[in-house]
């Protein structure tokens, strides 16, 4: 998986490419832990994210909890496969997914 970072003041965009699975979720967890300080507006761009499993959902949940305390978080360009997993698990209800 590739993670691209783009910061503008207190806004951060993380663009993920590839698979957010049990092998790669720790990478995202590390980036989130080191980059979120002072961020009030987090965008996760899933345009090139093909796949998500429960290990990825775990990181999304933790990140959403952090961002709820300090600002907002949204997911953009979520592909249908990834969206289906968010729907199956009910995660879609507390994540902000922009079309």
């Amino acid at each position, binding site marked *: 998986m590739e993670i691209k970072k783009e910061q503008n003041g207190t806004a951060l965009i993380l663009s993920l490419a590839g698979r957010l699975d049990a*092998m790669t979720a720790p990478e995202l967890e590390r980036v989130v832990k080191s980059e979120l300080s002072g961020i009030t507006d987090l965008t996760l761009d899933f345009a090139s994210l093909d796949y998500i499993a429960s290990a990825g959902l775990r990181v999304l949940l933790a990140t959403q909890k952090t961002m709820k305390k300090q600002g907002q978080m949204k997911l953009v360009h979520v592909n249908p496969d990834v969206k289906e997993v968010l729907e199956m698990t009910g995660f879609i209800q507390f994540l902000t997914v922009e079309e």
Partner: protein
Amino acid sequence: MEKKEEIVLAADICNLSALNEWIDALVAGADISPRVQMKISLAVEEIFANIASYAYAPQKGDVTIIGTVTDVPAELELVFMDEGKPFDPLARDDPPTDAAMEERGIGGLGIFLVKESMDKVTYRYEQGKNILTICKRIAS
């Protein structure tokens, strides 16, 4: 036509990509939609990750996977076998998918995704082995 393959891997999450490649090769040639392929990938990962995390911990051990692809019915069957601690993943309740974020944990999410993605999931413990079988129709 029936295609049957077997692989033995150390139960270590590092082997997930090797397992994915093996599955890809197993179903290559079958008429299978990307959506179904994603669901197979998801179920395989969640089961393998569970075994890698819990079956033998803190020791190490192997997982044997037997995969069968059939034409009639157009179906993929995967049997996961390990000799770790007896554990029935189907015994626990499904996570509350309508719970508020604050109450959401991730416990049980993996096996829930397996059940949601597959057409049939069965577990048995036999001769010292955890045997989990999943089936998915693959006709497009």
